[in-house]
């Protein structure tokens, strides 16, 4: 018995070591110099964490009014905004294509299309089934409009940075850090200690009161950054809520099954010395 307990402890320890080293290996934070990353507690953290819908809704407003002048959400369709677990989900509209908010958001964008009568290229208002359209016609145009820099797509940006949501939030609020001595900024580059190398092509995108929130929340830089990060976290991992709830049931089921199998094992082996 003692032998087996030890074995179990050892296997558990091995699994934990593997897990921790894996986490440590994957968790490379960005950042340079003395800047200390602020680690926020996000609503979506933890095994039962969900997206803060109000924050994500405000975040969409920030994206639409600020970020979307340069950054696309190429993997998102408008209908995704009304999916279960999404910022604008409404129980009354299980099909997000019927959701009036989603329809409005879509119609707010102009989509390039082909007129089926004439074959001409036309612009029409978006519908929920449309994807978020490209901001620039091509990469060269994007670079030309941004002093050579290429604004990255934001659909999976939170997953694509080592620090995740913390990285994006810190990047957005760290612009007021004074430029340290010895850092030479060429034209079109800005100092941001969170960015690898400290230099970023994007100028500070947020400033006090830049958007006017419908729910009366004060639009500080910190607030807008938090909100848009919450929105982008959802955009990067839109199925997180369903995954966590299925995960909880799965693990509960497996745990019960493990207990039952343990007793089955004890019973089958009851007369066997080993």
């Amino acid at each position: 018995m003692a032998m087996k307990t030890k074995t179990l402890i050892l296997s558990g320890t091995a699994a934990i070591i593997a897990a921790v080293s894996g986490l440590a290996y994957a968790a490379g934070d960005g950042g340079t110099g003395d800047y200390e990353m602020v680690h926020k507690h996000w609503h979506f953290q933890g095994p039962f964490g969900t997206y803060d819908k109000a924050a994500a809704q405000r975040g969409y407003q920030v994206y639409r009014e600020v970020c979307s002048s340069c950054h696309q959400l190429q993997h998102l369709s408008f209908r995704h905004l009304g999916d279960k677990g999404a910022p604008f989900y409404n129980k009354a509209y299980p099909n997000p294509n019927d959701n009036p908010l989603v329809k409005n958001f879509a119609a707010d964008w102009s989509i390039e299309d082909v007129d089926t009568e004439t074959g001409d290229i036309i612009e029409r208002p978006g519908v929920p089934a449309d994807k978020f359209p490209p901001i620039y016609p091509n990469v060269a145009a994007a670079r030309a409009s941004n002093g050579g820099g290429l604004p990255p797509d934001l659909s999976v940006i939170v997953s694509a940075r080592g620090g995740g949501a913390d990285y994006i939030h810190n990047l957005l609020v760290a612009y007021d850090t004074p430029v340290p001595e010895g850092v030479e900024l060429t034209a079109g580059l800005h100092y941001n200690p969170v960015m690898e190398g400290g230099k970023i092509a994007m100028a500070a995108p947020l400033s006090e009161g830049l958007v006017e929130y419908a729910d009366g929340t004060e639009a500080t830089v910190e607030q807008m950054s938090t909100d848009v990060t919450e929105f982008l976290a959802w955009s990067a991992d839109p199925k997180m809520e369903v995954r966590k709830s299925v995960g909880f049931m799965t693990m509960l089921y497996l745990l019960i099954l493990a207990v039952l199998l343990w007793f089955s094992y004890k019973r089958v082996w009851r007369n066997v010395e080993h």
Partner: protein
Amino acid sequence: MSGHPSTYEPKYGATKWLDQRLPIVRMGADFMTFPSPRNLNYWYTFGGILALCLVSQIITGIILAMHYVPHIDFAFDSVQRIRRDVPFGWLLQPMHAVGASMFFFAVYVHMFRGLYYGSYKAPREVLWIIGCLIYLVMMATGFLGYTLPWGQMSFWGATVITGFFGAVPVVGESLQQWLLGGYAVDNATLNRFFALHYLLPFVIAALVAVHVWALHHVGQNNPIGITPKTQKDTLSFHPYYTVKDAFAVVVFLLIFAFFLFYQPDALGHADNYIQADALKTPPHIVPEWYFLPFYAILRAVPDKLAGILLMIGAIAVLFVLPWLDTSKVRSMRFRPVARGFFWIFLFFCFILGWCGAETPDNMVPFMSVGDKGLNFTWLSRIATIYYFAYFVVILPILGLVENPKDRPESITKAILGDTSHSAAAPAE
């Protein structure tokens, strides 16, 4: 095929008819009653766990292949589409990606178990070699599969690995171009990698069938390494080991589920969420965690070709291990000195993994002050030397000079305590 007499009796006309023509039901029944040593511990459940991993990877992989688009312009998007729009794609895609990590975790446990209990020694040399072949094909499959999502690490990992072939003298460059289907990793590369990634799992499945065949021919090894002598030394595979394996499988699935549902990205790299860009090299190119030790061995020497030869040697040495280890004693339980060297070996394998993840010029924490002391290149050199020394120096010499402890006469005697020292041996 197995040595034990068959107890299967077909009861019905149809099963009798089939049994005379293709005794496939008999084979299944014989597998179920296969006499297995009665002292197998939980480390021996990983074979079953690995079979489950392979089946899971094949099923999820086939479904993913129905939705994935192997084209450089659409591959990255199609993976995102699978995760966002394909029914249960949010579950299947991470299950396949996390499943690869779990597969390698299980195979490493399985291999170290084989090393510890001497499962490669006579008469199991062929069983072991087939296992090494499976591992080799697994590595190829894992590498090819990692290219498919077409993220930055996919692309640059593939560029680095296929670059090795360019270091082969004389034919290197043409070999590399032939493999890539061009001068660089591009659409032709992605297409053939996809085709091969779909093919190789079935090669693994075939090798597993031969592995299991060989296992049923020679029988399982066991923690004390003493061959079962009488019927008392063994138990019928079913129900004894089916229930024990089932329990272990469910515990393994709990760990799997934890990563799948709560940390799906923890074992991957953030850069792979950035679409491949041939013009932008990531600052640190690292392979998947399960290749890190070999990556560290590769970078331990300054010469590219020498590094590649060392890396190949690190796997090749496993194939000849049955003839390198001169000790006739299988289990390390009775080889206290060898056991110490084994744990150091395991420790250095972790160290190599650590070195593989770090930048070679960086200094090792706790072993350096400022830029004085040990850097990761030197740490990986020390670990690489030990890795090879363990196989080609320590095991060959130790087998000739060490004094193994007395071994019990039989498994039953070991359990019932006739030979006190072995029954009390801890289960490491």
